[in-house]
Each structure stands twice: as C-alpha cells, then as structure tokens.
C-alpha cells in the first residue's frame, strides 16, 4: 500500500523538554488515521511536521516518498499546496471577511477569475453548512462556525490530504457528531488521506480506519478501532476508559 507520510525516528524538543522521542509512524495513502493522545503530548507538533511548519531535531519526515526534512520554504510549497490543514485555533485571518478567508488560498495559488473564485467559495461554504455568511468578520462567529469556515478554507484547493487538529474540541455534542459525520463524508467523497488529531475517543471510533496512540513522544499502538479495543496495553485501556 502506498504511503502518504512516514516519520522515521523523529525527535523534537522545545526549551529543553523532549516532545517527540524517536517517533515512528506510517500514514497510508487514502486512509483515515486518528492520532489519539492527552493534552500537551505533541499532537499538534506531529501534524506541523507533515507540512514543514516544524522540522525535526533528529530523524526524517517523508511525504509522498520524498524526504522533506531539509526543505526550505520554497520547496515546501509543493507539499503544502496539496495538503489542507485545519488549525486547532482555526487560524482565520482576523482582518478578512469569511469570503476572503476562504478565497485566500485560491488568490495565493491560482490565477482564477474573480467570478470563478466566487463560485468555488460559495460551493465550499455550502458544503460546510454556512451559506450566506460571506461578509461576516471572523470575530463575529462562534467557535463552531469558525471551525467550519476554516474547514472550507482547508479544502478549497482540493487537497490530497486533510490534517485536522482537534476538530471537535470545544464543540457541543450535537455539533461534534455533525463534524464527525462531515469528516467521514469528506473523506469518502474526496478520496483523500485524512489525519485527525484528537483526544475525543468517540470521534476516533466513528471516523477512523486506523488509530494511533501517542504516549511520551512515541506511538505506543497502531491498529483498527477493533484492535485497539482488544489491545492488552493498560495505558491504552486507561485512556479509552476515561
């Protein structure tokens, strides 16, 4: 099976604290992989390595069979163009309207006409259930709406892979369920690789093809949702029960 991304013994430390300690992980093309882990364990750090927003202190990161470890910002463009990233804080640009936020990647990366941009933006906003919010400013939106705008922005370039950083944290149960369904639908409709980082077990169980469990800077377990339930490791079971 083809591999989308491969972490080879990746180490990363911040201010004298080891966050990743020789993490090894394969992400397969076309799968929905959920990375589970407690808060502050380095989940965001893992995702940022895939698009070169962070680079390893030691070890290598491969994306689409290419070693991106030493890439500069220009070389990283080719990787970043094909990957959508839903940031934990949504990371909408405060100074731009919802429409301009979603249109931003198109304006940066393509030479489409304004009318074509408008059509695409409207289509994506509809997909995430936010028609008619085009001219609102991000600070007027609720947390859930911001996440959805960010999702529309992340998929506007029709990426090959989508990285979600805690897509359901801070949402109410109903919106959470809705987001889970949306992620699964997008995954199947767009035939993409989905990587979801979360500490929400229900999310994991309903969306995942495979689940990876992050513990102390390494992947302690990888397997299907059924396999993880039967896994004998008591730390994994402890986490599942909580």
């Amino acid at each position, binding site marked *: 099976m083809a591999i989308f991304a491969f972490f080879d013994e990746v180490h990363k430390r911040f201010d004298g604290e080891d966050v990743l300690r020789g993490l090894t992980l394969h992400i397969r093309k076309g799968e929905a992989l959920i990375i589970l882990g407690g808060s502050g364990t380095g989940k965001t750090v893992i995702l940022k390595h895939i698009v070169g927003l962070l680079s390893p202190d030691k070890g290598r990161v491969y994306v689409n069979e290419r070693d991106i470890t030493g890439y500069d910002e220009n070389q990283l463009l080719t990787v970043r163009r094909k990957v959508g990233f839903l940031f934990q804080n949504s990371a909408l640009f405060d100074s731009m309207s919802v429409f301009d936020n979603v249109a931003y990647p198109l*304006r940066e990366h393509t030479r489409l006409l304004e009318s074509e941009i408008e059509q695409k933006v409207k289509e994506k906003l509809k997909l995430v259930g936010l028609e008619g919010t085009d001219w609102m400013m991000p600070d007027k939106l609720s947390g859930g709406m911001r996440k959805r705008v960010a999702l529309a922005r992340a998929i506007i370039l029709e990426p090959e892979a989508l990285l979600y950083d805690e897509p359901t944290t801070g949402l109410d149960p109903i919106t959470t369920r809705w987001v889970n369904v949306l992620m699964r639908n997008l995954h199947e409709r767009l035939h993409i690789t989905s990587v979801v980082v979360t500490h929400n077990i229900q999310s994991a169980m309903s969306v995942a093809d495979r689940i990876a469990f992050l513990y102390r800077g390494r992947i302690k377990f990888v397997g299907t949702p059924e396999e993880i339930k039967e896994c004998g490791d008591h730390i994994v079971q402890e986490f599942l029960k909580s």
Partner: protein
Amino acid sequence: MMRWWKQFQQRIFRSVHSIGEVAYLWFDTLRYGFKRPYEFKSLLHQMEEIGVRSLPIVLISSFFVGMVMAIQVAYSEANFAGRVMVGIGVGVAITREFGPLLTALLVGGRISAGMTSVIGSMRVTEQVDAIRLLGASPAKKLVFPRIFAALLMLPLLTAVADFVGVFGGLVVSLVDIKMTFMTYIYQVQRAVSLTDFFGGIFKAVIFGFFIALIGCYNGLKVEGGAEGVGKATTRSVVASSVCVMISDYFLTKLLIIL
C-alpha cells in the same frame, strides 16, 4: 563567580543570536517583499495606522516641547542674550534633535507595541502558520508593509513635529517674551539650515526602520499564549526606545562629520 560568568556569556550569546535573527528577518523582507502580488492595501492601511493615528500625540507633545524650549532659552541665567535668541535656540534644538527624537520615542513606543501585539496574537492563534502554509511569507505579508509604512511616516510626522514645535516657541515668544513675530521667524530662518532640517528627517527614517523591525521581530517570536504577547509587547517598547537613543548618538555624530 563561575556561574555569574556563565550567565553573562549566555546573555551575550543570546543577544548576538537575536541580532542575527533580526538581520535575517530584514533580509527575508527584502527578498520576498518586492514580489507579486504587492501588498499595497496593507501598506496603505499601515500608513494610516502609523501616520494618522499618531498625529494627535505628535501635535500635542511637540507644541508643548516647543513652548518649554522657548521658556528655557529665554530665562536661562547663564545666557544674558537669551531673551533675544529664542528663535535660534528653539529652531536648532527642535529640528536637529527634539523633533526626530520625541517623535521616535512617542510614536515608536506606540507603534512597536502595536505591531508586536498584533503579530504576536496572530502567532499564538496560528495565523502566522496559516500564512506560511497557504504559500506566502510572513515577512512579505506582515513585516514588509509595516517597515515601509514606518520608513515613510516617521519622517513625515517628524516634519510635522518640527513645524509645530517651532510654532509653540513662537506662541511663547509673542505672549510671554513680547518678541515680534518677524524677529522670531527671522531668527529661526537664520539659524536653521536645510541641512539641519533634513538631517533630522534622515534620523527619523532610520528610527522608523529600527522601531518597525523590532516590533515585528518580537511579534513573530512570541511564545506561550496571551501572556507571551504581553511580555513581548513590553520588550518591544523598551528595546525600540533604547535602540532609538543609542542610534541617535551615532547618527548625530555622523551628521556632524558629514
């Protein structure tokens, strides 16, 4: 003793490291800033933010400094000719020194703090990462418009401060010292050369550059949430003021040699 020496070494090392990073940021700004699509809109926005919004502080403070200068010159005991020399004293002091310095300290504190807090909160909410991810350079999108707006607006504000300061001196001369309008203006004209005026403006350009670069750099380096933004903002105000003071000395020296 050893420990003290070690800490000292580390401090020096960190400072040199930061200076290197600041230089690198400037290099990146030049490298990416002039590429298409140009950031005209944000440049205009920043010019408004820096120029228009700083105008009230500049007007008020330079007016009062001009008045204070006039009184100081007029009533200085050592200088028996003081009363007659007000125009000369005020004109020279304001255009050469107080116009640019005052503007850089007041406006500089304001704008470097503003830049650090805006860019810093963009950093902690991952907007800076989003800019990089979506194919642009933060140096181009955020730093370039701010530095160039400061390069353009600080000299303009300084020119305003010069005129208003001299005007403040005039008011005191007329009301308090009973000097005639013509005498005061004549003195200012005789004393202040174009070289003085443009020397001050030149200082303002350099100050603007340092202020904006420091403000942006500290913003991009923010770590640790909202608290980190607050700390970085304070650091920016201090660093930009100190940098203005130190560079003022060397610029003054340089202008006198030239």
